[in-house]
Each structure stands twice: as C-alpha cells, then as structure tokens.
C-alpha cells in the first residue's frame, strides 16, 4: 500500500457549501495533507482517478441494530460493519436491544471487544435506560458511561412509566448522556402492524395511530424540558410529531431528532399486497407525511438522517404481515437511495447529505466531523454518479436482505471508502 | 386455415330436419317421445323437429341440457365455459327420450349428455338424433337418427349454423 494517495479530479462535497468544488486531494498516512486545484504529482503516489466523481466525508449512522449478541442469524457485528462500509459509513452507534440487552458496563465492554476484533470501522455501543429494557429499574448508567457509551436508549420500546423516565433523565443528565427515545404509547399501538387509516382498513390489518407516537414524543420532550436533559427523538414518522419538535426547538429545549430514509421515501400505500418489506415500527405513514418530513429535513428540523438498520431473516419476513417482525435494513442502501431520489433530482444537495448523514451524527456522538480539508483526517468516500448500483443479495453485505430495494437498480455508486490511510472499499 | 366447403345450404337443412321428423314419427308410432336438446344448437335442432311434428304431436315435451359440467376436457381450457341452465320440465322416469345434438364426432359430448340425463332420472329408453354424423368416433356410440353422413378427417372442422344462433344458416366443412 502506498503511503501517499492522490485523488485526482474529483469534486468535493462539504456540509456548508451547496457548490461542489473541483479539487485534488492528497492523503498521507490517514491525514489530508493537501487540497488544491492542481496538486503536483508526488513521486510514488497512488493515483485515484476521480474524474466526474464526488469526494465526500464518510457517513456516520447513529441508529443501527447489529443483532449481536443473541440473533447472529440475522446479523453480526462483522457483517453489519461490512454493510456499513458498503454504504459509505465509517462509524456507527449500535442499539442495545440485543439478547441480552446491553444494560451494564460489562456487556458494553463485551460488544466493544467483539467489535475490536471483527469490525474494520469504529463502533459505539449505546446502553439501555432501564434494566433489560423492561421500563422498571434504571440500568447501570455510570458503568456504561465509563465504557464510552454516548447515548442511552430503550429503543424498540418507549419508557412507558413517565416517572421512571423522569428519574432517568435527571440521573443521566449528570453524566452528560443523551437519551434517545423510541416514542410509542403501547396501549394505543396494541397489536397494530401498520399505520392506522384507509389502507389498514382495506387490508384488514390492525392499525397503529400516529397519535401513539405523537403523544409519547410530546411527553418525552416535556420531561426533557422539565429536567434539562438532552433527548434525541428517534425515527420520526408523522408530520404532526415533527411540528411538535420544531416548536419545542424554537422554545430552546435541548432536543434533537432523526429521520430515516424509508420514512421519507415510502408510505403506507407501498405495503400493497402485504409486502413485509414495508413493515416497520414506527410504521410508514402517509404520502403527505413523506412530503412534510422531506421539507422539514430541508428546513433543518431534523438534525440527522439515520437508517434504523434492522436486519431480519428471509424466513421471518416471509411470514404473514401481522406475524412478520418490524424493520428493514438500511446501511447498504441509504446513501445511494438518497442520492438517487433527492440529490440527482435536485431536491437537495450534497451539502445536506454531508451535514445530516456525516457531520451532525458525529457531533451528536461527541465526535469531530471529518470534512475533506487540508489538515483534516482522511475519512472519505468517492462516489460516482455516472455508475449504477444494483442491490442484489450478493451486492449487499448485511447478513439479511429485508429491504424494499432488493434487486432494484439505482443511480450512483460508492467506489471507494478510505479511513485511517486505508482503502476499506475500492471497487 | 383451410378452405370452407358447404355441405348443406339453408334449404338443405330444412329438408334434413323434415326427414328426421318423418323418421322419428315412423319409428315411434304411438309412443310419443320427449325431446332433449344439448346446448346450444342441439336445442335449436330439437325445436325445429318439434315444429315439424306439431300437426301430429302438438305437445312434445322439450328439455335442455348443458353438458359443460360433465366435459372431460375442462383441464385444457383457459376459460371456464359459461354455464346455461339445464331444464328438464317433465318427469323423465319411464319416458322415451330423444336426445338432439347438431354434430356427432368423437362421441364424448354424447357420453357427457347421457351422464347428465341419467342424473336427472331413469328414462325408459334414450335415442340419439343428429343433423350431421362426421365419423371419427372415440367411443362406442352411434346415432339412431342421422340427417347427413359425411366422411371427414380428424382436424377438419364441421360447423352447423342456425339463424337463431348464428348470422347465417348452413353446414360447412373447413379442412
């Protein structure tokens, strides 16, 4: 491997510039040593021809289910990290709803140990808010914090008892931890398997009303307002919920939030004839929600884009709609699908993608962003908009392929991923 | 598609219907039969013969049979045949029945028609009248009354057309 890498002729994407600037990039041992219009060819440099390509900071995903420990048949930390690299992601935060749930410092360490051995990218493990995610007793928050947990969450479930959550917020605040909230009033969701409305009536599927999410989200932010804790609202699906967050943000409450690619791109109508690739919790809402969430992303209401990568086996997803598990994979597909549907069509630019899927997720995790600038760390991707990506089973590195993009061909391809002076991916 | 040849004109059909009626009258004697036509053109044929005999027997009972449910080739069809109502508005038991079909070919339709008839009751005797017998039997069945007998090859197509059911009248052979 050459010490020097010369990215020649690419256009640089940055979070604060709508314009892509054509500049050469010279990388040496994990550092960007030169960014200029024409870099003089140094002796022995490895040349990467980036003609027509975009060079962007590598992505970061704050919401990933790697399933290890416990459901290694769905995904492992190794396959999950490879799926991330495949999708241009070089760091991620894993959710703690594994088997067992990650609710102590020891368990956090055990995951980090596996990651150190199996993952080619750094991994942050989040911890539970309550023991076993049962919503009753607080998990070992200080112990988990000492192992580097950036965020605590009972993701998959809300913390049903508001008093438990209030205490958790008061406690976690003093450890400078963010509480990431899955918002749902379980009693309202019941046995629901999709958004409640015209489509759920037609299909005869029990519905989950949007107010199940909206009420809980409102409650959680009010508790954050009261306690002064930092909360992060996960996977917002409804426009009304988004408006609640916008209003609290304007009031100065310390709340951040995320939107997933699937809640932007898909809605209840896509379920069609009981396609379980469109079953997730919180569920896909309406087309109107798609439009309003997209506008909110452009307006800056959403701090980050996160995939909620949720692998399930083909066997599980092949069962009937009500029995099939919630969730779809996203790491392999997120960047290309967002490029295809929004950047290529001019709905938003690379600057938004970089800001919301690279820079802000890192800041949320108390990390520095990785802009492509002189003196910066070389953690970047090369993206060719003129190539296409077909999401075949073989192409995707996740152990599972429960995604609506399965076998779809979209515009754009990630051709290189570089981190720490090393090519993690080079097509 | 081969060429079409006329086997019987409209007048020819009328003549053959008359001959069938006369033969039936002769052979039945005092034993007035009941008629049963097989959908669609067997019913028309039965009505024509009944009309020809209205002087002697003004009140021949007339029934209709749809044999679709008894066909043995349903598996080969992409479309389930449209069903007509079978209607036997008289007591079959002990009755002499003449079954009408326009063309006799392999004998499979007749086999199916007999099966349907037997499911309605127990006639004293069943005879078969056809306008055209084109041979090439696949079952050991023969008509009792025949208007016209023609030699044909398997794969030929014999069409009987009545103005009641079709645009024209005549019997045509296409090879």
């Amino acid at each position: 491997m050459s010490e020097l890498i010369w990215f020649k002729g690419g256009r640089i994407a940055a979070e604060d510039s709508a314009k892509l600037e054509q500049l050469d990039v010279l990388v040496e041992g994990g550092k960007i040593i030169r960014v200029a219009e024409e870099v003089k060819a140094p002796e022995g440099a490895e040349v990467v021809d980036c003609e027509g390509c975009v060079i962007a900071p590598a992505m970061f995903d704050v919401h990933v289910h790697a399933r290890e420990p416990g459901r290694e048949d769905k995904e492992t930390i190794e396959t999950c990290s490879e799926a991330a690299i495949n999708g241009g992601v070089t760091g991620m935060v894993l959710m703690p709803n594994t088997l067992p749930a990650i609710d102590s410092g020891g368990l956090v360490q055990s995951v980090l140990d596996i990651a150190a051995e199996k993952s080619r990218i750094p991994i942050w493990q989040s911890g539970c808010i309550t023991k076993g995610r049962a919503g009753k007793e607080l998990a070992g928050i200080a112990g988990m914090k000492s192992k580097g947990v950036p965020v605590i969450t009972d993701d998959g479930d809300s913390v049903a008892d508001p008093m438990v959550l209030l205490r958790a917020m008061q406690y976690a605040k003093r450890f400078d931890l963010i509480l990431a909230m899955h918002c749902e009033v379980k009693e309202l969701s019941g046995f629901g398997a999709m958004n409640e409305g015209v489509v759920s009536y037609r299909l005869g599927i029990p519905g989950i009303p949007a107010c199940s999410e909206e009420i809980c989200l409102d409650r959680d932010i009010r508790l954050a307002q009261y306690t002064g804790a930092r909360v992060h609202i996960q996977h917002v699906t409804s426009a009304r919920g988004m408006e609640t967050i916008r209003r609290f943000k304007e009031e100065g409450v310390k709340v951040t939030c995320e939107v997933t690619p699937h809640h932007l791109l898909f809605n209840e109508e896509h379920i069609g004839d009981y396609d379980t690739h469109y079953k997730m919790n919180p569920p896909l809402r309406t087309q109107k929600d798609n439009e309003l969430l997209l506008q909110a992303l452009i307006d800056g209401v959403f701090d980050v884009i996160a995939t909620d990568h949720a692998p399930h086996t083909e066997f599980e997803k092949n069962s009937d709609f009500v029995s099939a598990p919630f969730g779809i994979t996203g790491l392999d597909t997120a960047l290309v699908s967002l490029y295809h549907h929004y950047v290529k069509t001019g709905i938003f630019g690379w600057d938004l993608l970089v800001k919301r899927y690279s820079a802000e997720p890192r800041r949320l995790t108390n990390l520095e962003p990785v802009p492509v600038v002189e003196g910066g760390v070389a953690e970047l991707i090369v993206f060719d908009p003129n190539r296409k990506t077909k999401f075949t089973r073989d192409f995707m590195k996740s152990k599972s392929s429960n995604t609506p993009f399965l076998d779809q061909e979209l515009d754009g391809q990630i051709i290189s991923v570089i981190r720490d002076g090393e090519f993690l991916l080079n097509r | 598609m081969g060429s079409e040849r006329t086997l019987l004109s409209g007048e020819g059909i009328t003549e053959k219907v008359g001959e069938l009626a006369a033969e039936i009258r002769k052979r039945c004697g005092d034993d007035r039969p009941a008629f049963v036509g097989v959908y669609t053109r067997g019913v028309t044929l039965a009505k024509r013969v009944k009309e020809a005999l209205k002087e002697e027997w003004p009140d021949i009972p007339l029934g209709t049979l749809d044999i679709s449910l008894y066909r043995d080739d349903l598996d080969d069809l992409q479309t389930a045949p449209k069903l007509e109502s079978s209607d036997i508005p008289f007591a079959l038991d002990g009755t002499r029945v003449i079954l009408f079909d326009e063309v006799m070919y392999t004998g499979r339709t007749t086999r199916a028609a007999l099966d349907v008839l037997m499911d309605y009751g127990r006639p004293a005797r069943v005879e078969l009248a056809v306008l055209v017998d084109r041979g090439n039997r696949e079952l050991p069945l023969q008509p009792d009354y025949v208007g016209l007998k023609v030699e044909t090859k398997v794969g030929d197509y014999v069409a009987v057309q009545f103005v009641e059911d079709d645009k024209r009248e005549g019997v045509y052979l296409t090879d």
Partner: protein
Amino acid sequence: MAETEIKSRKDLLDIESLSIEEIEYLLKTAEPFKELFRRSVKKVPTLRGKTVLTLFYEPSTRTRTSFEVAANRLSADVTNFAVSTSAVVKGESILDTIETLQAMRTDYIVIRHGASGVPALIAKHTRASVLNAGDGFHAHPTQALLDAFTVREVYPETEQKRILIVGDILHSRVARSTSTIMRKMGMEVGVLGPGSLVPEGRPDYMKSFWNWEDALAWKPDVVYLLRVQMERQEQQFFPSLGEYHRVYGLTSERFKRVEGAGIYLMHPGPVNRGVEIVDEAMAYERCLINQQVENGIATRMAALYWLKPGEENER
C-alpha cells in the same frame, strides 16, 4: 350475444380485485348450480379426480361444511387438514404448512386464518388454487358472493338499492367484502354501529349512521346485521351486551318498523338471538338467512368451477 370472455383465475382472495364482469360471471354461474339441488342426483362430475383441502385455523363449522358440500357436489375429493386452533398460530408454522401442502399436490386449498394476508401468502407459494374462506379482518369473498347472489334473487336490479350494514364494522371481514361487492353492483352502502367499531379509515362511499332512527329514515332495502363478537365487549368497545342490544340491536320495536317497511333481513350467521337480533325476526318472511346458507353452496361451487390451479410443475 357478444360476451367478453371471462378468463379463469388461480385464486380467490378478495372482492376488491374482482372486476364487475367477473362478479357477474360468478353470480350467473351459481344459478345452474342452485338448480342442481332440485335434481334427484345433486352431484356433477366436474372436479372428478381433483382434491380440495380445507385448512381452518379458526373454527367455523358452517363455512367449512358449506365448502365441503360444494366440493362434494362437484365430485372433488375433500380432505380436512386438521390444524391446531387452540394455540396462537405464528407465521413460522404457516411456512412449514405450505411445504407440507405442496408435497400433497392438492388442487384447491380453502383457508381460513385469523391473520389478514395469510391466504395471499399461501397463494404466492403454491400451485394450488387458494380460496380465502376468511382472513383476519381483511376479506371473506365467498360470503360476499353469496350475499350478492341472495340480494339479486330478491332485487334483480341492484342499481341504487340500499343496504344498511349494522354492527362491528372495524373487525368485520364480512362488512369489508360484502360492502365492496354491493358497491360494485351499484348499491348504496350505509353503516350503523357504535362509534368505537366504525373506523375512521372506512371508505368514503359508506354513509354512516349512529342510530336506528336516522338509518331507517334513509330507507334501506336490505338490513344486514353483523354478528356481535362477544369478546369485543370485554375489550370495552361498548359498555355491555344489554346496552348494545338496546342501542344497536334489532329490537322488537325496530323489527316491527323493518317488517312494516318490507325491508329484507340478512345475517352471515351464526346469530346471537337477543343481542343483534330478536327471536321473532328469524321467522319473518323477508328474512333471507336460510337462503344465504343455500346460496353459499351454489356460489362456492361457482367459485371452485371458475378457478384453475397452476401447472403441475409450478410451485
């Protein structure tokens, strides 16, 4: 007689996907089958050598028997695949069952399942024709066909006729399928039920009523009473069965008004006497419940006659 050909389908999963021509064809085809019942031999050899499997994950003696009689009269061999209905049946066992069914090389599968979409899932994975005998809250297409056939017998012209469906619209696959077919046949559909059981997501064409007074003032031609599922009361969709009967049931007093107006009565059965319907209404000459049962056999025969399983070598 220029008629459009009605191509056979592999499966009958819902009413929504049927064209009006297909519905008309099925109703027309059911007529000669009903006439068969008056013959001494009520059987035809149409499906001789074919196998029909009934697979009921929810117990329903009536519907299963109706399908069995229909299949028998078409000379098919009928087998009841005994499935456990006591335990909650999870998706996993369905996939396993599909494999088993595949190996049995059955031609028709009649399935009832508590989860919406299961018949569609099975249909995707087998060459056999799948007849949905009720799935979750989703669809009950043969019930809808027999209801339509029954309405046609009393009203040959269904255009602009009005049907009032009374009861639990939210959890009823019968309400979904029957309202869909009546709508497709040009009828106006009204619904009456407790606010907690008439969902917001209902189609726009449904005119909703919240009391009998308004509903009868709409002058329905047919009143279709849905069965009250007793467990709904425990889930607090309404306060008590007594209150249900008083407010939404066909009480003696309301029955008198129905009788006076000559309105036809229908019910998918089995009825809870004294809850959704009073005793005396069962003897009403315009009560079509028994016709519905008889017509169920004829329309199910028509459905079996129409469907064509996939090729032998197909999955």
